């Protein structure tokens, strides 16, 4: 996949795949093209060349909501809950977004939304406006909303940014629970190295738009090119 903005090529011929139920981390220095890659998958803008295949089906050119309905959900780097809506309504949007053929009672959907809030640790906050939540609560709410769309793949964009160590620990438990209980593939961007190395099965490293390394966390941290990308070349 390649994507250019004017003269700048943000993502250069990056190729990778995600296995079912895997947790794959995406790292790289600032400006490496991580968020651009996310937006390409999420259909915010199309790739110049290359394709995104989901269960063997090309999703290039589909609109954002269509990609979501296929089973790819995401959270945002800067949280975007529906601020002037209650927590329950926020999650309800994701359930409505599934656009299910068979009609269900509203009570049933609200019950399901309540369960999801409980799952992410927001039980008892159903009626609270999203505006009044703390940062970690907003992030949890966004995860609940994304889960409500019943995704097969969940894209998490820097969910740990701005959290303190104990909150990071809670968030990691939640991510692990999402995988084990909902059987969802997780693809995430993160700057908190310790956390992403611990929780991921596989790591992809981007630098200046190129994939420079892919492998198990242990292999990645000892790779010469990765160290150079982060710290600069030895004699520089």
């Amino acid at each position, binding site marked *: 996949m390649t994507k250019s903005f004017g003269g700048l090529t943000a993502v250069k011929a990056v190729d990778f795949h995600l296995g079912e139920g895997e947790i794959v981390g995406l790292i790289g220095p600032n400006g490496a093209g991580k968020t651009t890659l996310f937006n390409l998958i999420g259909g915010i803008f199309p790739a110049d060349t290359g394709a995104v295949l989901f269960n063997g089906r090309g999703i290039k050119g589909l609109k954002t909501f269509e990609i*979501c309905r296929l089973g790819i959900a995401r959270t945002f780097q800067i949280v975007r809950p529906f601020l*002037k809506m209650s927590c329950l309504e926020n999650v309800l*949007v994701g359930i409505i*977004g599934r656009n299910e053929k068979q009609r269900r009672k509203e009570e049933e959907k609200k019950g399901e939304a309540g369960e999801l809030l409980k799952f992410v640790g927001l039980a008892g906050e159903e009626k609270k406006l999203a505006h009044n939540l703390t940062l970690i609560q907003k992030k949890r709410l966004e995860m609940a909303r994304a889960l409500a769309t019943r995704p097969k793949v969940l894209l998490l964009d820097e969910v740990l940014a701005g959290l303190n160590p104990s909150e990071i620990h809670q968030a990691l438990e939640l991510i692990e629970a999402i995988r084990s209980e909902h059987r969802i593939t997780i693809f995430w961007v993160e700057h908190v190295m310790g956390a992403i190395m611990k929780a991921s099965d596989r790591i992809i490293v981007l630098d200046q738009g190129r994939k420079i390394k892919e492998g198990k966390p242990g292999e990645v941290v000892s790779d010469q090119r990765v160290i150079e990308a982060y710290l600069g070349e030895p004699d520089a």
Partner: protein
Amino acid sequence: MAFKKYCLPIFLIILAIFPPLVLSPYWLHVMIISLFYVMMASSWNLLAGFTGQVSFAHAAFSGVGAYVSGMLAVFLGLSPWMGILLGAGAGALLGFGLGFLCIRMGGIYLSLTTLGFSEILRIIITNEEKWTRGTMGLQTPGLFAHYSKADTYYLFLIVTVLILFFIYRFIHSEWGVTFRAVLNDEVAASASGINTIQVRVLAFALTSAMAGLAGGLYGHYLMLITPDIPSLGQMFLVLAMAVIGGMGSFAGPIIGSFVLEILSEYIRVYGEYHVLLFGLVALAVARFAPEGMMGIWAKSRGRQ
């Protein structure tokens, strides 16, 4: 609980039966006009207050309803009742078109585009002699064989209640949640599987149909349709009613319509300046109490 919920609306509807029995013809006229504004402000609120599309073309769509129905009656001899329905349909169709044109726009750009549409329509109607009779206005037949303010009042009341009932059910259904999601954050709504384009165009078509219906009724009540109906002055009055009453709430535009219409009867002696005054008040409300009278009321209740 269910009884309590329906208590207030039923009480208000029963109360609304009495005006023709007690009010003078002049004040009955004011009530009829107020009901027209309730339909206009409430439907505009569904568009602007629930999907965030601040359209300036709402009065224009009421003009579409009035002129389509009026011209069908004058030139084809169609019954006003049929004409009003066709006028609402024409409003829906044009609303769909304008909504579609605006799908990539937000905020001020959408407002300016709809303002342009509104003015184009008004200028065409003003300069057209043969079909719309320009500034002289189009004389149209009334709704009833025998002119009766009381009958007209009841008709307006029934249609208003039906529209309000529809809006109430709509905003308290999943559609209401969807509309507000689009209002809050379009990108996030889209990433949650909501077809935001469908929502926006639907809102335009639906509310334009309501404006067309209100305009058709209004035209046949006045029996003279002039380019004042689709004018920006009218638009700002509707906007002021919704904003001062409380955008994004159900009751806000209803209260705003009655308060401003009745108030404007008292300050009518100052001529067109009352629109200026309402504009200033609406500006102040938008700046200092963005949730309008409903918001102020909710806040004062919360403090107790």
